[in-house]
């Protein structure tokens, strides 16, 4: 047949396809390397507002000190999936994630972050901290005061899935630490409490922001177990007259850590800027912004007193003291077959 000449015709049709794909690949690859220096900060969900403010300050500060213009790009998402993106090649210069375990994972799997990263910056490489608190409807109609009240009949608790959310892991550990003390170290009672707690959860969102939306916008549940900074933010965004923050008797000191991804910043030539960026977080200027964005600053004296006054004093356990560090906590509680898997029995 006349048309049966695949060889020539095929080549004519297929080559452009392949060429287009390749052109796209190379074209953008080179276009992305712009003239001004760019830093990519890969962060987790609730820090969007914080880094918007910080970045503006740092850009001005950098210009003043070095005379150079710098652009800071942001990427936000669940802490775990952000870590995974960096492992899979996302060119982050710095990571600012929800928990040390996620940065450890990057360090271990790629070697782009030195193993002792947490010692490279002050305060466990966490320039700000937070904790876990409860957010309830105005007037606290269900009378929720502490962790024990979450498992009372008729109380619906909203919190995300510890398997997919960094914040939820802090929730889980805080509940664990409380129950351990409340039941005098009785392991069986402690485990029963955790099981009952999650039976009170009608919606297990994949991330902290999802849970916040379910609670604040969809009207699900009586109490949201959440980051302290997130709880304040909800009050600001949805109206202080709608919600109250309840501080439990005991919670956990959440340290969202930061690190330079040297394996990315080095070859890109942004190492110096990346380090300066993270060091900047510890400066009084940044610490004040941190407090204004509802994170607990490491240097409260640098912040406005009214911002500091918001933070209630409460007993805080630490991940290292209570759970022997993230590596151990991760393996014991959240890995496959860990306590969460053992204790999670949904109510049908």
């Amino acid at each position: 047949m006349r048309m049966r000449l695949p060889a020539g015709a095929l080549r004519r049709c297929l080559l452009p396809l392949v060429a287009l794909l390749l052109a796209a690949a190379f074209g953008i690859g080179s276009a992305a390397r712009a003239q001004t220096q760019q830093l990519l900060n890969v962060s987790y969900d609730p820090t969007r507002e914080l880094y918007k403010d910080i970045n503006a300050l740092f850009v001005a500060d950098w210009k003043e000190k070095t005379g150079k213009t710098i652009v800071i790009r942001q990427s936000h998402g669940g802490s775990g999936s952000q870590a995974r993106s960096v492992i899979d090649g996302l060119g982050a210069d710095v990571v600012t994630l929800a928990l040390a375990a996620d940065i450890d994972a990057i360090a271990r799997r790629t070697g782009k972050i030195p193993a002792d990263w947490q010692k490279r910056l002050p305060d466990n490489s966490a320039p700000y901290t937070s904790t876990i608190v409860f957010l309830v409807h105005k007037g606290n109609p269900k009378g929720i005061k502490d962790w024990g009240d979450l498992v009372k009949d008729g109380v619906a608790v909203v919190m995300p899935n510890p398997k997919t959310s960094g914040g939820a892991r802090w929730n889980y550990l805080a509940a664990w630490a409380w129950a351990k003390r409340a039941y005098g170290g009785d392991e069986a009672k402690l485990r029963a409490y955790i099981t009952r707690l999650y039976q009170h959860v009608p919606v297990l969102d994949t991330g902290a922001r999802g849970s916040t939306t379910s609670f604040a916008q969809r009207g699900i549940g009586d109490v949201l177990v959440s980051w302290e900074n997130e709880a304040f933010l909800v009050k600001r965004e949805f109206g202080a007259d709608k919600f109250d923050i309840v501080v439990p008797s005991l919670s956990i000191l959440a340290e969202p850590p930061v690190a330079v991804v040297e394996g990315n910043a080095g070859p890109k030539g942004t190492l110096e800027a990346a380090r300066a960026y993270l060091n900047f977080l510890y400066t009084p200027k940044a610490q004040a912004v941190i407090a204004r964005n509802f994170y607990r600053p490491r240097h409260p004296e640098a912040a406005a007193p009214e911002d500091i006054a918001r933070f209630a004093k409460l007993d805080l356990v630490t991940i290292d003291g209570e759970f022997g560090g993230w590596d151990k906590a991760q393996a014991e509680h959240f890995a496959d077959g860990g306590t969460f898997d053992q204790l999670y029995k949904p109510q049908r």
Partner: protein
Amino acid sequence: MSLAIPFKPKPSILPGFGLSLGITLTGLSLIVLIPLAALLLRAASADPNEILELVTSARTLAALRLSFGAAFLAALLNAVFGLMIAWLLVRHEFPGKRLVDAAIDLPFALPTAVAGVALAAIYAPNGWIGGLVAPLGVKIAYTPAGVFIAMVFVGMPFVIRTVQPVLAEAETDVEEAAALLGASRMRIVFTVILPGVMPALLTGFVLAFARAIGEYGSVIFIAGNVPMVSEILPLLIVIRLEQFDYAGAAVIATLMLVVAFVLIAAINALQGWTRHRLGDA
């Protein structure tokens, strides 16, 4: 097994077999098959015992049942209403028809996350419809029913859009003749119209079904995501990924893929069979 043998065509006067085969196979391989092969390769790297345990765990099976069950029901509903709406758009005139016609593609254009948020806003207990049925003790959002709703939404355009062009070009002569001969309307629908659009209808059903199985973005906003109850398979994959367990994720993905592929192949075979039967009749 060489590819050349199965792909050898029956003699035909039409040209372009080699060319179209070349383009199709190249595209299919580069975009679909090679990437999926990477998935299988990664799944195969998992420990066989772990694979077995993962695939047969109660939680995986519950998610499997929900994903495929809800997707099947959603596709069924879409098939019935899709056919009706296609008919409405092709054979009836009404004000605003063009607007309705254009809006059919909305579930594609709307990012699934937005669709999820919008649907949750409508069907949540404090939403427009969720609020209506809440006093009756009916919950839609954050239950398996929510999964079903999201799946109906994302699969809706498929049936309509596959049936519509076929219906538009179907000759109305036969229907008219049947009507003249005194056939009832129901009879015309079942003996004249339905057989004609059956292949397209089945195609639409397959597409809606397949799309619903894999849907993630819109479902997680409205499902509640409670393990064993309202947790879908794609979420299980995401949970694996969050734990950096690529192999586990690949295993569940492969499981989904195999079950979906078998089902789709079966329906496609059915479609081929109906077309053949109709052709012979």
